[in-house]
């Protein structure tokens, strides 16, 4: 049993390389998705139907088709139209486009949730519409939706596992290849699962710290601020109380 784990860990550098690629392409896709989401949200709130319509079509088409299919289109179909993307490029484009549609709706909701009085007041203070948006509406909108946006980042990291279908050597695909070679199914996918957990938790932690530093008043921490030890202690105390009552 122990020997199996050490044998499976012989491929450690390969796993690490794959996890690094997963992180890099997820972050690239996230940046693309944020840009698309912000543009999309603005376009969906536009006064002009000609601007609103394409954004609505984008959101509905992307949200209502499977992301795996979108990856196949980006990688296998686009060459027929003269656009040849490498597996990693196609993967970033497909993931970014997909999550961009969800972020469009998230950002739109965030902007809508900013009270109207805020922009009216800033216009009264003679700020231009652009500066009103940039300095008054956007920071509050981002603050509203920050946890939901970070959620989408986690979705991208997990969704990148589908890219193995277009031969991107990311973490899941690499684990499948290693598994077919050493056949240590539990060990190989166990290692991959742990790496995903480390990756997503690290990213969420960094995002949480950024969120706390960037917003004023600061965001409430996403989890109750209680150490594991304190949590166990209070659980134990509750148990004792229940026993006493019984």
């Amino acid at each position: 049993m122990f020997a199996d784990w050490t044998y499976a860990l012989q491929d450690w550098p390969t796993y690490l390389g794959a996890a690094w690629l997963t992180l890099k392409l997820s972050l690239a896709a996230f940046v693309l998705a944020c840009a698309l989401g912000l543009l999309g949200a603005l376009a969906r709130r536009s006064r002009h139907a000609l601007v609103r319509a394409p954004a609505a079509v984008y959101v509905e088409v992307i949200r209502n088709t499977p992301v795996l299919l979108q990856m196949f289109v980006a990688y296998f179909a686009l060459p027929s139209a003269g656009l040849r993307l490498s597996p990693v490029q196609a993967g970033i484009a497909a993931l970014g486009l997909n999550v961009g549609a969800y972020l469009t709706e998230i950002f739109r909701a965030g902007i809508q949730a900013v009270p109207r009085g805020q922009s009216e007041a800033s216009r009264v203070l003679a700020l231009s519409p652009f500066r009103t948006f940039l300095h008054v509406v956007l920071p509050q909108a981002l603050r509203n939706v920050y946890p939901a946006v970070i959620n989408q980042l986690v979705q991208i990291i997990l969704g990148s596992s589908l890219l193995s279908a277009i031969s991107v050597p990311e973490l899941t695909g690499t684990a499948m290849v290693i598994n077919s070679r050493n056949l240590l199914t539990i060990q190989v996918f166990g290692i991959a699962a742990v790496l995903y957990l480390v990756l997503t938790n690290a990213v969420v932690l960094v995002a949480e710290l950024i969120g706390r530093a960037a917003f004023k008043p600061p965001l409430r921490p996403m989890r109750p601020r209680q150490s594991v030890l304190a949590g166990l202690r209070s659980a134990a105390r509750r148990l004792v109380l229940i026993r006493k009552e019984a």
Partner: protein
Amino acid sequence: MAAISVSALAATSLLAACSSSQNPASRAQDSTLQKVTRSGTLRVASCLTFPPFGSTDKANKPQGFDVDVAKAMAKALGVKVKIVDTTSANRIPNLRTHKVDAVVCNFTTTAERAKQVAFSDPYIVAGEVLMVKKSSAIASLKDLSGKKVAVTKGSTNGAAVKEGNPKARIQEYDTSAAAVLAVKQGQADAMVEDSNFLNYQAKLDPSLKVTKDSVVPLEYNAIGVGQGDPDWLQWINTWLREFNTSGQSAALTRSGSASSPYTR
């Protein structure tokens, strides 16, 4: 006194014979062979994205050479067949977790794989060749330096290419069909796969061609079963011999484009 000891000896040896015959009998009861005949269904994993060995017809029913082999096997057992679609990478996990009774999916025998599963005698042989666009200058492993080469995850081909030309850039796909698509769409410069499969693909699409050189020596493909079940393996081998000598295999081969080790 002597007579007593002789009869005691006979009694103990009789006992020993009884208990030793108990084990094989109970093992035979536990054999997949018994389970299949009792349940009336033979579960076979085949790769249905690998024509002419496995694919689906217009009614979405499994078809192909490997599917026909599985059907013939079930017929000989007098049971129904249930084909389970699988991929190259999932053949061994399917057997190790007892999801299927046998794997009939172009399963090349290797010593490495035989550590995890048991193989029958080979029922088909193949070479591994390259498929490229007709306009391509690639003719052998030497020409693959710096070129993108599509293979399937869990097949023997990725390692064979790396060994033959370390400068080749390997892309690993889930199915052979996806690898063919990558070559057709110019996402890969070449792919390596079973010669029977690639000849069939090149026949379907005139923009593709197959190289003459085999990338690896001849490969022997066999039926894979779980380890530790000699009765089941023994039945499959006995049946395979009948399947070949009776001309059933040859008849299937003539109707398809595959080639059996005994008809070559």
